[in-house]
């Protein structure tokens, strides 16, 4: 099976960072070594051997960024009513239920207020394992509310993206969330309240093409896949192989799209410094 797996990964780079767990062990996609899962857990899902960044779920992200693991979650009970009554091979509502059971979340973002190195902030953390972190009306609404709270309370805003883009099952309604959130960000911009966008693996489609690229600072984690179109769509369009490292955080930094690529363990101090700079 090994050759088959590698083949699959080559076609789907965005899927290559899933943690493959054989009980207590995991194989690292960066260095291909076997690592203890509890070592990985203890190290915020960063390979202790090579520094490869595995994905981090939304709750862990909040623990990483906010002081003493203490925050107040907002709008946790908001859930979609399935505007299109969408059905493909199975009903969207069924997909929602299984995503809700698997993650313990109502939808693909957790929004919260807490302190980051002593400073009150609002943080939105997207959950990639909830239908690919896709943005429908709940993600749109919760992030917009967070932005409005940030503007009203003059609290710095941090949004951590991990998303395949707009949620197809909510159709054009989900497309409109891009405009809704971006309009709210125009008001936050006007109010002079800082917004740091953190782009993690993967951030693509309508999320990149709206709030994720609109930070006062756009910061990415090392190796994160970031783009507008997914690599497969581009390959199919241009009918050629994509260059190595294409659409990775370092590629975007080189092309002027990011302010910095910051390793996960340095993210909190980096944000603390930056937000202090903007607000003091």
């Amino acid at each position, binding site marked *: 099976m090994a050759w088959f797996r590698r083949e699959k990964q080559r076609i789907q780079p965005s899927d290559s960072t899933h943690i493959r767990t054989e009980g207590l062990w995991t194989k690292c996609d960066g260095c291909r070594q076997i690592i203890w899962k509890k070592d990985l857990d203890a190290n915020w899902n960063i390979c202790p051997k090579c520094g490869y960044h595995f994905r981090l779920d939304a709750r862990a992200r909040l623990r990483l960024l906010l002081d003493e693991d203490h925050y107040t979650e907002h709008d946790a009970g908001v859930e979609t*009513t399935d505007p299109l009554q969408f059905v493909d091979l199975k009903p969207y509502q069924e997909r929602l239920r299984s995503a809700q059971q698997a993650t313990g979340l109502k939808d693909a973002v957790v929004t919260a207020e807490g302190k980051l190195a002593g400073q009150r902030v609002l943080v939105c953390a997207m959950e990639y394992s909830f239908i690919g972190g896709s943005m429908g009306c709940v993600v749109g609404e919760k992030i917009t509310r967070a932005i409005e709270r940030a503007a009203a309370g003059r609290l710095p805003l941090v949004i951590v993206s991990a998303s395949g883009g707009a949620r197809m099952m909510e159709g054009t309604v989900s497309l409109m969330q891009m405009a809704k959130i971006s309009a709210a960000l125009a008001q936050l911009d006007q109010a002079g309240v800082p917004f740091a966008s953190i782009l993690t693996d993967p951030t693509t489609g309508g999320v990149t093409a709206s709030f994720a690229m609109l930070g006062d600072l756009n910061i990415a984690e090392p190796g994160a896949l970031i783009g507008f179109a997914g690599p497969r769509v581009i390959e199919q369009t241009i009918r050629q192989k994509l260059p190595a490292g294409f659409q990775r955080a370092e590629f975007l930094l080189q092309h002027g799209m990011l302010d910095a690529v910051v390793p996960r363990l340095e993210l909190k101090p980096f944000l603390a410094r930056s937000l202090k700079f903007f607000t003091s």
Partner: protein
Amino acid sequence: MDSEAARKQSEHLEREIETLGKASPGGETDRRIEELRGQLRQLQAELSGHASAWSRVQLARHPQRPQTLDYVKHLFQDFTEIHGDRTFGDDPALVAGMAWFHGRPVIVVGHQKGHDTTQKVQRNFGMPKPEGYRKALRVMQLAAKFRRPIFTFVDTPGAYPGIDSEERGQAEAIARNLREMARIAVPIVVTITGEGGSGGALAIAVGDRILMLENAVYSVISPEGCASITWRDSTKAEQAAEALKITALDLKPLGIVDEIVPEPPGGAHTDPQKAAQLLDPVLEQALRDLCQVPVNELLQNRYQKFRLMGQFFREAAAS
């Protein structure tokens, strides 16, 4: 073709099918009957105002469907095209310019796919790159500076997915347009004229009045793209087109479109000039309404308009 003519045409088709049915059966006859039945279904669907989503996708993509420069020709005077994003280049997939509309100076921005093969290649099939969106924003900010209202015409399969687009920041260009269009301090009238292809369409579709032609479509993903992801079969596009709810009739009740603009029977491509004439009074009314609104209120209303899109959720008490 008006609805009376359409009814006559459908009766004619029914008779022809009946006659052929009585004739000797065979491959050729059967094919012809099937073809006529197809035409009949289409005609009847249109007569009842319930053309299938897929048939509207076909109309929206028709190569002879009027595009931005056709509307410019029929509806605007003294159009002067202006080019370039002042940063990288000029994108022929997206046109912009100064024009006069019923005696008023306005700015026009829109996608241009091209009608024949040469034009389509030259215009990249109406799929803009970042420089296209940056040109659009530059010109819209020029409009704001000189207080000229803006008309945008939306008709694109999507923003171009290529290596160069990504290198130059396709996502950033679209995102910036979304944020800036929310606060451009002049009236913006958006018309979805053909294919509203996802982010590449939305990037020039934030405005005060959103109009949509009867047979236009507006979608987060192409039906083919949706079909290949969900059904893992791109031939299920017809089904996907229905499921995605992308027609003007679907989108008006969802609060995404303000007004549906009628087309000549059979679609805008059958009579581009007539299509423009049908659009003209709707554009004029929208502009008249919006020009009476003080700028602060205009911007507030625009914010509220998009703020309220997607109120499809319930709120349980947090567990």
